[in-house]
């Protein structure tokens, strides 16, 4: 049928059936901005447009409902290369991070501003009440709206957006328009799905309905016979390669315990088969035609079940070591069941898979017994964290295709180079046959540090030659991508009466689920990013990680630190209470400070000896002082409502900036004929602003305008190696590499300029914009240098490369404070004030740094209060959707939400920068739990702190 709608101001005839889904039809019509994050359940708002001037979710509408009506999408807001005032306001305020939700947010605010000239905070919240953004924490939207209003009057209005740093620098530390802001604010094309060509195939996975079973028999013949089916893959015909899906530097600490398809399924949602078909519908039908016979095994869901002496064993695998095999390995392997496949360790991680132990480690400093014997007070508590999902609004998605005889992978990944390496090994082709193009990533948060689906699509394309799109559903995202490790942490503290710590014991058990990705390193990080915050001579930690049949775990922003921090920081709050001293004073007495030597890090390397570090830039002192002042710490609190009690809490936090001795980043800077530059960066921007960081590094170093530096990043054919975006390494390593490449370019510029000007290099300096000037007053422009070098007599086009590696650790520090109200009759917690104060060294992009902090804080407020994946006894997830798994949104913002950058200067990071994002996730759970205790006197030792649990703790409900 034909429908006429008014689309973005002009009539458009659409060829469609009346009952077709509007979102899909709009995509077909080339409107790419209608994104999908919830598979049409209407809960994410990413697909929103204006229908007759009102914001609606297009996934919930049919074409017939909108015939003759007016549709307006974000595509209408900008002209060819010009963004509207609203769009620039969004980008400039730092509220465009990954950009996946940006079109929806823009249309929501567009509608609001059409109707209300000067909206209130509440009106903005209402306008965005249906838009889910996992990145930004929303807070900067209010500024964006203000900015947009001003810019309607004066398009060049700047206003105050964020504090700036380093007066002497041009770009670094300044508020500058994000380099990918233009692309994201326009609504694309930008993401993997925007790249697919007509005629591509769809890949769908048959998921195991059982948590633990052998596949006794699988028959794919009927599926294969279905017209339109291109390929069916199962454990019978996939490559017999065991690998590791964790995107980590080689050799990885994680065990190689994945096979593309295995004979044993280990969680509900585990892969049984894949179908590649001409259409999604055919692929779905084919899945139904696959017959599988399972031999059911009892599921193992908890740490206690996994370590029980008679526990069902997930991994009776044949174990191999690349290095460091134990002497009794042959005997060990006699217990293996061939159906359980293999596990390969690059080096020992003290695993015992035949007893469900995925990894273990212990270490410490001083003498723990001595420490406890010196203690006047000993406190021992256990804390547990729940399984939470990263929920990037864009689920995992990949598009694979052949270009001549090479494989091209359009990926939404944090680790393009690791992907290339791992896939090359699985398919058995050299790395130079594979190109991974990292597209804009619609949120990663750690879930996209792992290879969750790429190898299947890649293999199928390699075998069939077909273009393949593989996109996870929201349900698959919950049950088959990555989640936070479930942890149980026993803390034992010894202290003198005056609060001086004498001993810390951290005994941590983790549940890694079916695979060992990150099974050693996430739990270790829980220790290594929490213990060094406290100065204590006697420290001991134990880590034991167990396999189980829960949905897979992996990296999640913070990487174990949120769980470790929750346990140790809340134990400190409990200790303060026990000692009768002020919590803040107790932290002040024991905290790390400038000049502290962190010996404990020697035993916290990732599977190898670590490097002890000295602390050079610690912003904790000012963070605590300023936060306490902002909150009025210690002043009395009165609640006007007798049912509502108010309390305050604090937690101190830290992270690292990449992994010294393990991570590396590379970059190259090339000069073009007019004296502008192209930066090739290995760094992977996930919406964090990394591409802006690297451009700033180059523009700053080369005294040029940011517009004079174009960037291509994370395209493995074009850009040099980088470990990827994880471990808070982006600014430090990828940024450092860009700066080093620019320094190389600077040397080349001096060399050429010296020759042109006939002056010694010592006399030369760079001068903004784009000149090499001499003390004598003469100068040469970059354009002149470019012409000179690129002429027939020149040395050739100037290109400089840079690498960043280091054995130095730079730790960002921070303090999170909150004030909250507990409704003692409903158990509901309302956060009234939340202050995140963090030192990032030199914040390269201050407005984006603040955005990272707001986003991390709100996300983890969600983890602390609302989020938890619920499993039944069979290991089925009961809330694998946004109706039942509740994420915080704009309506849940603290009434007063402030992120504050504490100024410190780091000696090792580029321009003094440290990391910013992950650390933001470490404060919410402990500071909220401490505040709940302050309000109502109960300690919440398992997260999330739901109303029901709080009422139970209060004794209002029986537990």
């Amino acid at each position: 049928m034909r429908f006429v709608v008014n689309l973005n101001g002009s009539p458009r005839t659409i060829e469609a059936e009346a009952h077709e889904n509007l979102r899909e039809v709009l995509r077909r019509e080339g409107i790419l901005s209608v994104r999908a994050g919830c598979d049409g359940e209407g809960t994410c708002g990413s697909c929103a447009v204006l229908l007759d001037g009102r914001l609606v979710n297009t996934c919930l509408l049919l074409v017939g409902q909108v015939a003759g009506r007016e549709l307006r999408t974000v595509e209408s807001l900008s002209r060819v290369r010009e963004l509207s005032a609203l769009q620039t306001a969004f980008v400039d305020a730092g509220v465009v991070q990954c950009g996946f939700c940006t079109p929806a947010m823009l249309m929501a605010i567009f509608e609001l501003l059409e109707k209300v000239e000067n909206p209130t905070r509440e009106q903005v919240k209402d306008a965005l009440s249906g838009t889910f953004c996992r990145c930004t924490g929303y807070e900067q939207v209010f500024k964006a709206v203000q900015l947009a209003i001003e810019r309607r009057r004066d398009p060049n209005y700047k206003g105050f957006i964020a504090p700036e740093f380093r007066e002497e620098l041009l770009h670094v530390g300044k508020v500058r328009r994000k380099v990918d802001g233009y692309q994201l604010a326009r609504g694309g094309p930008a993401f993997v799905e925007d790249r697919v060509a007509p005629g591509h195939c769809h890949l769908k996975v048959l998921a195991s309905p059982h948590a633990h079973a052998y596949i006794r028999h699988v028959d794919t013949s009927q599926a294969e016979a279905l017209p339109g089916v291109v390929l069916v893959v199962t454990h019978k015909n996939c490559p017999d390669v065991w690998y590791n899906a964790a995107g980590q530097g080689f050799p990885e600490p994680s065990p190689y315990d994945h096979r593309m398809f295995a004979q044993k399924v280990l969680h509900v949602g585990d892969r049984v088969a894949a179908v590649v078909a001409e259409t999604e519908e055919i692929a779905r039908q084919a899945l139904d035609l696959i017959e599988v016979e399972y031999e059911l095994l009892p599921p193992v869901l908890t740490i206690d079940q996994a370590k029980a002496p008679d526990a069902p064993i997930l991994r009776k695998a044949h174990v191999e070591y690349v290095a460091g095999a134990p002497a009794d390995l042959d005997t060990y392997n006699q217990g293996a069941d061939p159906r359980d496949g293999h596990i390969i360790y690059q080096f020992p991680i003290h695993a015992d898979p035949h007893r469900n132990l995925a990894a273990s480690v212990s270490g410490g400093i001083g003498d723990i017994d001595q420490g406890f014997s010196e203690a006047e007070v000993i406190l021992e508590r256990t804390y547990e964290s729940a399984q939470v999902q990263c929920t990037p609004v864009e689920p995992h998605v990949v598009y694979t295709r052949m270009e001549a005889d090479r494989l091209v992978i359009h990926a939404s990944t944090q680790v393009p180079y690791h992907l290339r390496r791992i896939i090359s090994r699985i398919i058995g082709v050299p790395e130079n046959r594979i190109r991974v193009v990292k597209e804009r990533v619609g949120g990663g948060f750690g879930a996209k540090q792992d290879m969750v689906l790429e190898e299947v699509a890649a293999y199928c394309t390699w075998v069939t030659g077909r273009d393949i799109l593989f996109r996870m559903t929201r349900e698959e995202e919950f049950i088959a991508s990555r989640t936070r490790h479930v942890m149980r942490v026993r803390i034992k503290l010894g202290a003198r009466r005056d609060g001086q710590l004498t001993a810390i014991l951290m005994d941590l058990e983790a549940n890694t689920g079916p695979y060992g990705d990150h099974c050693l390193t996430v739990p270790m990080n829980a220790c290594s990013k929490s213990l060094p915050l406290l100065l204590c001579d006697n420290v001991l930690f134990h880590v034991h990680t167990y396999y189980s049949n829960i949905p897979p775990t992996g990296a999640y922003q913070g990487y174990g630190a949120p769980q470790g921090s929750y346990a140790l920081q809340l134990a400190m709050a409990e200790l303060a209470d026990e000692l009768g001293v002020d919590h803040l004073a107790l932290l002040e007495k024991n905290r790390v400070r400038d000049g502290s030597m962190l010996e404990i890090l020697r035993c916290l390397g990732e599977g190898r000896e670590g490097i002890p570090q000295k602390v050079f830039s610690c912003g904790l002192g000012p963070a605590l002082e300023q936060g306490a002042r902002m909150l009025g710490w210690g002043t009395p609190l009165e609640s006007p409502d007798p049912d509502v009690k108010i309390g305050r809490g604090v937690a101190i936090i830290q992270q690292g900036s990449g992994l010294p001795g393990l991570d590396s980043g590379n970059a190259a800077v090339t000069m073009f004929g007019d004296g502008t530059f192209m930066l090739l960066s290995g760094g992977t921007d996930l919406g964090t602003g990394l591409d802006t960081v690297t451009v700033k590094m180059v523009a700053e170093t080369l005294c040029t305008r940011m517009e004079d530096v174009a960037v291509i990043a994370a395209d493995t054919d074009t850009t040099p190696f980088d470990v990827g975006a994880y471990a808070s390494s982006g600014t430090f390593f990828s940024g450092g590499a860009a700066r080093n490449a620019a320094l190389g370019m600077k040397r080349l510029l001096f060399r050429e300029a010296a020759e042109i000007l006939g002056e010694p290099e010592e006399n030369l300096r760079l001068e903004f914009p784009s000149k090499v000037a001499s003390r004598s007053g003469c100068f040469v422009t970059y354009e002149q240098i470019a012409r000179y070098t690129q002429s027939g007599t020149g040395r050739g086009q100037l290109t400089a490369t840079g690498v960043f590696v280091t054995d130095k650790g730079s730790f960002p520090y921070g303090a999170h404070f909150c004030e909250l109200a507990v409704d003692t009759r409903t158990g509901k917690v309302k956060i009234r004030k939340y202050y995140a104060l963090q030192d990032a060294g030199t914040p390269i992009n201050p407005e984006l740094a603040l955005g990272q902090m707001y986003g991390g804080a709100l996300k983890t407020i969600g983890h602390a209060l609302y989020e938890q994946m619920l499993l039944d006894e069979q290991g089925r997830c009961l809330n694998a959707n946004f109706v039942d798994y509740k994420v915080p949104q704009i309506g849940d913002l603290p009434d007063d939400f402030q992120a504050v950058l504490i100024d410190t200067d780091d000696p090792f990071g580029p321009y003094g920068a440290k990391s910013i994002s992950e650390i933001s996730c470490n404060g919410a759970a402990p500071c909220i739990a401490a505040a709940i205790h302050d309000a109502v006197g109960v300690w919440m030792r398992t997260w999330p702190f739901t109303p029901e649990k709080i009422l139970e703790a209060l004794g209002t409900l029986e537990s």
Partner: protein
Amino acid sequence: MASHFHQPERIEEALRFKQELGEAAYFLAGGTEVNNSKSKAAQAEHLIWLGKLGLGGIKRREGGVSIGAMTTLQEMLESELLHPAIHQAARNHANRNIRNVATIGGHLATCRSCADVIPVLLALRAWLRVATLSGELERDIERWLLGERDGIVLSVEVPDPPADLRVALECHTRTANDVSLITAGVSLRNEQGCMRDLIVAAGGVAASVVRLHEVEAALEGKPLPSREEVESLVAGQVNPIADIRGSADFKRHLAATLVERALRKAWNR
């Protein structure tokens, strides 16, 4: 996905389609339920769209206000003709995006246990105009809730409340953007220190929103008793089911708390 999209322009036509197609057909209003990928209706073969029947709009009538079935919850929220308590209830409903399409007719027909706007309609003694093949009729909302849900809702009729009517609503959600777990809606008049014409409605405690008649009867004509008394009275009258959002005990406790709060709020107004 449906394969037929019918667009009747007369009510009888719509009713007749439904009669002929039976279970295979769904009326379609805003579509937040029907077009939802997770709903059963998404599998229906036939959709009968109600968008061409002229059922939109909010109108003043003799003695009250009439809300057309196709009126969206956002339109209700913005209408100055409606009681502020209706605004509040509509505001509790999901979020802007959903409110912009979800209709009051669809809301009533979906009849969720925790439908956010139904308690206030009970509290305001609203009724429905319903079209059936045997003609147009007026239907009491309570009977609608109890299962007499045949036909097409044409409008919700809200009578003008007496000047001294006090209405109060409460709801509990997990996050701000959530379907309510428990709701409470009450209305009463304070006649010389006693509660009169009491209506107490609660959502989330039964298959659909219910009026708590025993609670009403126990309190009618009395001053508001102590908190504990009211709470235990309510707790004794509700039997919510346990689900992943909460245990039965928790929900019962919430219902008691919220009804008591609503009563006290109305009482003190």
